[in-house]
């Protein structure tokens, strides 16, 4: 996790009795303009300003920066609002030179950005609908007329005048409803690039120009070819505008998941500064600020409780429905909801560093990343438009050379139709739209997918390695049995063992120390502590040499074990981990520890196996215990007694067998194995997720997250394939038909209006199909 680079409190200037400057609580909307002549103020957040007298120093330092007109500090909020057109970086430097830390206020909150985007989208939608309306209200009646009378030929002077008027009206449509296509086409042409605008502008432009030629110079074309295509021009423009508008609406729905995540953020926070409580925007909360949260309120930033206790609903982040009890020293996460009590907490992560902000950021990035399956489509779309233009020209030439009369009309119609029907958009949209919905859907289920590649690989996983401790089991082992060899009682043994283990950080050691605490046993002093990696520990307590570890360690030290070996095997068969305890080289007891299997692990493992995935357990534990746990969890294969550094080798072993391997661990000591696996899953418990360490992060502790992740990836990949296939077939079949390939066989040629409709709805279909993924439900049994 990253921490803030700056720390507050680097400068202190305590001057008692200093008056607070009479600055109002401005509520400037924070803006960041690093160039240009912009009158709106830039907002800086100041850290390290301990007292009111710093205000003057900071203000004058800022005013000395060239370009600054005024600088006004709001001491209570620790913000400075600077007007003028100075560069933001210079402002920060000036404040730093004066001895304080400064950073630019976030350009704006995610919420504001989202609201603004929605407003912009809404405006764009309205404009597109208006344009559609204009185009279709001319094109519709014209087409009806053409269909009913079949009269779109230009022969008499009256007809010429009438069509001239229609032609001018159509030009109006091109101008009002289709201007953006033409401007876009021209601009990209100048830029040596071509896009969808190019195709539409060329197609409709050709149809309109040809029609005008027919109106003005009917003699220049053969009599049968004296058709006008004004109705096609208007309708195509209208339909494509309509398609764009509907696509915009459908796209909005693809980002619902991220909107929901952003909506979790609180807007304001109540902080205590200088013994006063004030409500400030969450962007202005600094590290180490003390924040008050009352029942029913959202936790604004990440922090550590300093006063009070409460229950907090963390379900939005972890999927865990039960509220979590929090007392002094516990951590709280931004976006979760305080249920019962009022608490004070110290902010430890603010702004972009909170777990929620990082989750949002990761989901956003993942939504925009592309799985490898989309790469071919990318290559195709890069060459698509010029190729279609070449096909259009070639098709026109073929009709002119070999076509029946009126060849010129056929040539124009086929070229126009080819240009109109080709739709690079559908191809380009196929992958990103599905990824957007799929990644969002996964996030809703508490599954964070790093990028498109992880998404694609997860859909192909054939073997899943599960770390035992903390993944299949709760990771909180407890002492279950103490079998005494000599005459000492349980408590004496436990006291010695706990004393010995008090220096160790091993989870099993923790279990023994906790067990002693529960019995009210106090631990003594330990000396010469020595950890024997993978085997156990040794130390001296009260002048006795204590040895605690596995069978191998005892054998190495030639300690007589007697029938305790069978007893140990018996314990192991019950999925307990037995450890030998020797005092002065004489066996004293066996202490068994068990780590219970998580409630839903068995069901989740069954789900994985049901989907044809080979589930393998990995543990450092002894063989017998591993076997018992594996049997209990319903796992047939396991690797036992694996040293931590050998975990990645086991992953490679399975890969050598040709498996696509998923590795699941807690993300801390499994990092190398997670990295080497085809897909590394970090299993988090609570909000303290190791987001950086894995391809996929499961925010809650349940293994159902694995099955969900794989199911979402499979559904998404299937959706992408449908989209790509559809878009590909559409273009591959559509373009030749438009060029007239069916004419020699069936005598039919596609109407440009049909092409326009097909094109308009092809990309809409892709987006709509991607939206179907929203209905995906992770099946938990």
């Amino acid at each position: 996790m990253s921490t803030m680079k700056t720390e507050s409190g680097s400068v202190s200037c305590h001057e008692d009795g200093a008056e607070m400057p009479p600055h109002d609580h401005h509520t400037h909307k924070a803006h960041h303009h690093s160039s240009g002549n912009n009158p709106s103020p830039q907002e800086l957040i100041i850290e390290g300003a301990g007292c009111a007298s710093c205000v003057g120093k900071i203000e004058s330092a800022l005013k000395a920066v060239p370009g600054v007109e005024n600088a006004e500090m709001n001491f209570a909020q620790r913000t400075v609002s600077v007007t003028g057109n100075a560069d933001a970086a210079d402002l920060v430097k000036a404040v730093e030179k004066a001895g304080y830390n400064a950073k630019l206020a976030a350009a704006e909150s995610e919420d504001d950005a989202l609201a603004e985007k929605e407003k912009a989208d809404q405006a764009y939608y309205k404009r597109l609908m208006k344009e559609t309306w204009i185009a279709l209200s001319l094109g519709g009646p014209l087409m009806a007329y053409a269909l009913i009378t079949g009269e779109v030929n230009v022969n008499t002077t009256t007809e010429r005048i009438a069509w001239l008027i229609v032609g001018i009206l159509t030009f109006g449509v091109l101008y009002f409803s289709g201007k953006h296509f033409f401007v876009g086409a021209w601009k990209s042409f100048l830029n040596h690039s071509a896009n969808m605008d190019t195709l539409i502008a060329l197609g409709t432009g050709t149809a309109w120009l040809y029609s005008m030629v027919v109106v003005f110079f009917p003699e220049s074309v053969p009599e049968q070819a004296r058709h006008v295509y004004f109705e096609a021009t208007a309708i195509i423009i209208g339909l494509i505008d309509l398609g764009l508008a509907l696509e915009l609406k459908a796209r909005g729905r693809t980002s619902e998941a991220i909107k929901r995540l952003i909506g979790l953020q609180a807007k304001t926070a109540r902080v205590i500064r200088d013994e006063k409580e004030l409500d400030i925007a969450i962007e202005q909360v600094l590290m180490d600020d003390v924040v008050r949260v009352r029942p029913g309120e959202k936790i604004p930033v990440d922090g550590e409780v300093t006063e009070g206790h409460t229950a907090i609903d963390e379900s939005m982040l972890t999927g865990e429905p039960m509220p979590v009890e929090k007392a002094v020293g516990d951590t709280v996460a931004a976006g979760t909801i305080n249920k019962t009590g009022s608490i004070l907490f110290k902010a430890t992560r603010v702004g972009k560093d909170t777990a929620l902000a990082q989750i949002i950021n990761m989901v956003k990035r993942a939504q925009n990343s592309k799985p490898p399956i989309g790469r071919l489509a990318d290559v195709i779309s890069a060459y698509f438009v010029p190729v279609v233009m070449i096909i259009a020209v070639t098709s026109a030439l073929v009709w002119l050379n070999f076509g029946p009369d009126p060849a010129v009309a056929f040539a124009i119609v086929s070229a126009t139709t080819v240009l109109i029907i080709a739709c690079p958009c559908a191809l380009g949209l196929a992958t990103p739209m599905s990824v957007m919905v799929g990644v969002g859907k996964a996030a809703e289920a508490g599954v964070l997918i790093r990028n498109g590649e992880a998404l694609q690989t997860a859909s192909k996983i054939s073997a899943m390695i599960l770390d035992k401790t903390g993944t299949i089991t709760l990771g909180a082992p407890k002492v279950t049995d103490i079998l005494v060899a000599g005459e000492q009682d349980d408590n004496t043994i436990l006291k010695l063992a706990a004393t010995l283990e008090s220096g160790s950080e091993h989870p099993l050691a923790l279990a023994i120390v906790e067990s002693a605490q529960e019995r009210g046993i106090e631990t003594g002093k330990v000396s010469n502590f020595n950890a024997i990696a993978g085997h156990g520990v040794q130390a001296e307590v009260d002048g006795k040499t204590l040895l605690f570890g596995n069978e191998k360690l005892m054998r190495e030290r030639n300690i007589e074990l007697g029938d305790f070996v069978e007893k140990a095997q018996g314990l192991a068969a019950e999925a307990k981990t037995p450890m030998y305890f020797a005092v002065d080289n004489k066996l004293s007891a066996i202490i068994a520890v068990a780590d219970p299997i998580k409630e839903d692990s068995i069901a989740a493992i069954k789900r994985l196996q049901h989907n044809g995935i080979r589930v393998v357990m990995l543990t450092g534990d002894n063989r017998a215990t591993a076997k018992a746990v594996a049997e209990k969890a319903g796992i047939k294969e396991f690797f036992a007694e694996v040293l931590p550094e050998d975990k990645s080798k086991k992953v490679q072993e399975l890969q050598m067998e040709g498996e696509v391997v998923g590795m699941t661990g807690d993300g801390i000591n499994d990092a190398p194995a997670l990295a080497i696996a085809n897909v590394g899953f970090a299993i988090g418990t609570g909000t303290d997720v190791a987001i950086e360490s894995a391809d996929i992060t499961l925010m809650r502790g349940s293994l159902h997250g694995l099955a969900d992740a794989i199911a979402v990836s499979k559904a998404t990949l299937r959706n992408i394939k449908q989209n790509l296939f559809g878009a590909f077939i559409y273009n591959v079949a559509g373009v030749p038909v438009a060029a007239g390939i069916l004419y020699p066989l069936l005598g039919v040629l596609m109407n440009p209006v049909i092409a326009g409709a097909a094109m308009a709805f092809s990309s809409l279909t892709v987006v709509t199909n991607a939206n179907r993924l929203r209905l995906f439900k992770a099946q938990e049994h």
Partner: protein
Amino acid sequence: MLIINSVGVVVIALIIWWFWLYKPKEAELGENDLVITVENGTYSPSRIKVPAGEPVELKFIRKDESPCSETLLIPELQISDTLPLNKLKSIQLPALKSGEYAFHCQMQMYRGQLTVN
């Protein structure tokens, strides 16, 4: 007919030359603030020279309402970001090795290239 066919062939040749073969000149990311405008289906400038071996900042302003133009991808650098409408947006690039890096929208209709040397 010969004339028409020749014209057609020339048009095809021109398409190939204009869209594929011709390399427009590159804008340099230098002293004066270079801002890439996203408008009317294009990035302008679309070909940008960037010095190698030092982190640089690209500034974008999107004036195009089309949702296509919203996402900016630089796949080789694993960068993907959204460009807000009518607002300056800075993209930080790490120090780059010499070479060519494409940047584009999700659908590759908006395309640009960074030449690093």
